[in-house]
């Protein structure tokens, strides 16, 4: 097989280039395992992020034969191709080879106040939470913050201020948590074109998410909550 891997060292190279490696992966090798073997055996200078190798840490997002995914969860044999083209995530600055700068992604994450806002100290025997209510949160807590969705989102691509799917889905996860008491103003912060109304509903985020989070469900849910919250406020003012 030929692995065509994007190489770029911004301090030294004028522009990115593809480097070709010939490598025969073992039958059940993932793209990450192939990359490691290429690095270990052929080119120790090749740089890419990795950690858990089991699709739970979110480090190895990249573009593989045109598709955004986790390298560790992509089987080389499933690609069904003689050539494997590997590129860094799009729409983010390349730091080196397949490593991109995720700063805009993390800034969006921080902006939504990504933490439970429960009022007082812990109740003596813990919070009483309905089993089903807690399970509703589970769809969103499988998110591993790999930034595949952020990178694939056409809105985030053209508007750097847009919070992006992962951050919005994270906010929704808190908004539906029965223990959370965040004020409505926390949701209103995303009540604009750089928040939930920026979404084009083309669902690229749902398509590329390696954990089936369906971030767009969260965006949709936030829209409903914001509309309902505003309606309630109007209703209260004009009984």
């Amino acid at each position, binding site marked *: 097989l030929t692995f065509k891997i994007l190489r770029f060292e911004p301090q030294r190279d004028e522009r990115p280039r593809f480097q070709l490696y010939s490598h025969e992966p073992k039958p059940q090798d993932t793209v990450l395992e192939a990359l490691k073997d290429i690095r270990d055996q052929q080119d120790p200078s090749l740089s890419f992020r990795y*950690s858990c190798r089991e699709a739970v840490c979110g480090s190895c997002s990249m573009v593989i034969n045109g598709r955004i995914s986790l390298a560790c969860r992509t089987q080389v044999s499933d690609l069904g191709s003689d050539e494997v083209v590997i590129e860094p995530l799009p729409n983010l600055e390349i730091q080196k080879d397949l490593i991109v700068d995720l700063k805009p992604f993390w800034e969006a994450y921080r902006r939504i106040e990504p933490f*439970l806002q429960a009022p007082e100290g812990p109740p003596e025997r813990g919070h009483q939470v309905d089993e089903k209510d807690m399970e509703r949160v589970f769809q969103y807590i499988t998110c591993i913050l790999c930034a595949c969705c952020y990178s694939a989102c056409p809105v985030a691509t053209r508007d750097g201020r847009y919070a992006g799917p992962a951050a919005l889905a994270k906010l929704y996860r808190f908004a539906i948590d029965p223990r959370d008491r965040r004020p409505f103003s926390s949701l209103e912060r995303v009540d604009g074109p750089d928040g939930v109304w920026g979404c084009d509903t083309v669902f690229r985020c749902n398509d590329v998410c390696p954990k089936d989070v369906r971030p767009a469900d969260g965006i949709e849910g936030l829209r409903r909550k914001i509309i309902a919250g505003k309606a309630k406020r109007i209703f209260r003012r004009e009984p």
Partner: protein
Amino acid sequence: MIRYDLLIVGGGLAGLSAALSADPKFKVAVISKVHPIRSHSVAAQGGINAALANHPDGAEDTCDLHAFDTIKGSDYLADQDAAELLTRLAIPTMYELDHWGVPFSRFPKGTIAQRPFGGAGFPRTCYAADRTGQVLLHTLYEQAVRRNIVFYEEWLVTDIIIRDRKLAGLVAYDLAGGEIIPLRARAVIFATGGYGRVYQKSTNAYINLGSGIGMAYKAGIPLKDMEFVQFHPTSLLGKNILITEAARGEGGYLINAKGRRFMEDYASKAMELAPRDIVARSIQREIDKGNGFEGQYVHLDLRHLGREKILKRLPGIRDICLHFAGLDPIDRPIPILPAQHYSMGGIDVDATCASPVEGFFAAGECACVSVHGANRLGGNSLLEAIVFGKVAGESASAYLRGGSAGIDADRETAEAARALMARMRSIHEREAGENVFQLLNRLKRLMSDTAGIFRDAPTLSRGLEELAELREAYRRVFIYGNCGRYCQEMVVLVEFEHMLEIAEAILLGALRREETRGSHFRTDFPKRDDAAWLKHTIITRSEKGPAITYRDLKPGRYAPQERVY
């Protein structure tokens, strides 16, 4: 010069927990070689133990019983007072975590759900489906964001600077900036995790090279009980990805190629839920006896649990099987075999997480308090990381409050950074040499071959000889790429040097301990020997090489008894 009161090294559960408990009046930062949520804590699956007594079958549970199970599980090598502290703090810790936002699964009446786990008298393992580590790590990170804790992400700490038995500073490689940087601090907490990738077959993340342990050792801080290496019974064939103990906690069977639930022969009462050392050994015995499939694995069968239970309680395991083995555990058994999983040993600290070096603390898997002794129970590692991370944050704060003036070591720290830079440059300027990634692969094979589940003197001695050769080869190491930004060769090169020390400590400790206890099974000394060996192994690096001494256990409430499950 970058200056802090307290630097925490490692952004996993122990490091974050330490950061959250440190006194906010001090200047604190966390240094992590990966973004904190990429840390290996994220991969923990099954749960975290606390005697909440929420389970209908666990109404009688208490923290004393949890302590007893932990001590018995440790094959009586745990420090009993530390185990009691751990299990007592477990209960308020669970409620605090819940309040911070951990989405624990619930029982129908709304309380935190609990499931059975190995070696536990009652179902006391709290969980969020089978993604417990992920939700804990994400939640602690969220709390750190809330409190604006400062992070140095993708910085690898390379050296510890100690002067007059006092912590003075650190040196780190900033991957994104491509520079080697000196840092001063009055106190440091190491929360750098385990060394799983010293082994070929490990459930651990690729990044778990464990250099923090070796670095502390090189700096003169002793290590404790390094021979005790946990092999998890159930790792996925081929990939060695962890298949949680919760799969057995929920009722999964272990089946050999003859179709038998063979645990009957090894632990007739606890069966699949015996402690990990016993189950891992039993599986390996079956494989060695020729009762494995294709001579190399057994089955973990979940089919009788039914689709609904698997989807609800073990969705992550199903995903792993689908994506990494191409099988659905609803329809087919999972091929599994034991693999390295956890390091019971580590940096020698007391129950306040303090080391013999003033201002240097350690917590989590890199540390050895010891609460796990010779074998850790499932569900106790997340607990230990969080509880002792917190203890370390508090101890370090108390140390800082004590007004320790610190010392003037700017010159030494800057000098150490320059020395590392010069060394990297000289390695880079060589004409050719050894590829560090290949050296690492050699080390892993060596350790898997010579310090595995079953050990004996000749094999361990051979391991030490081969390790000496590898040490020689490392002297000829070469950097092929540029020593600039994101030079992962440099990362592994620095870490590998410390891994050599870890490997030696494991092999030596294992060779000297002429008994069988917990995870340490000597085929040439197959019995536990309390008269001679109820003591911790302490290994210290001296000019002449490693020096081993032993420290007797403090007598505790529970006298050692035979471990029958």
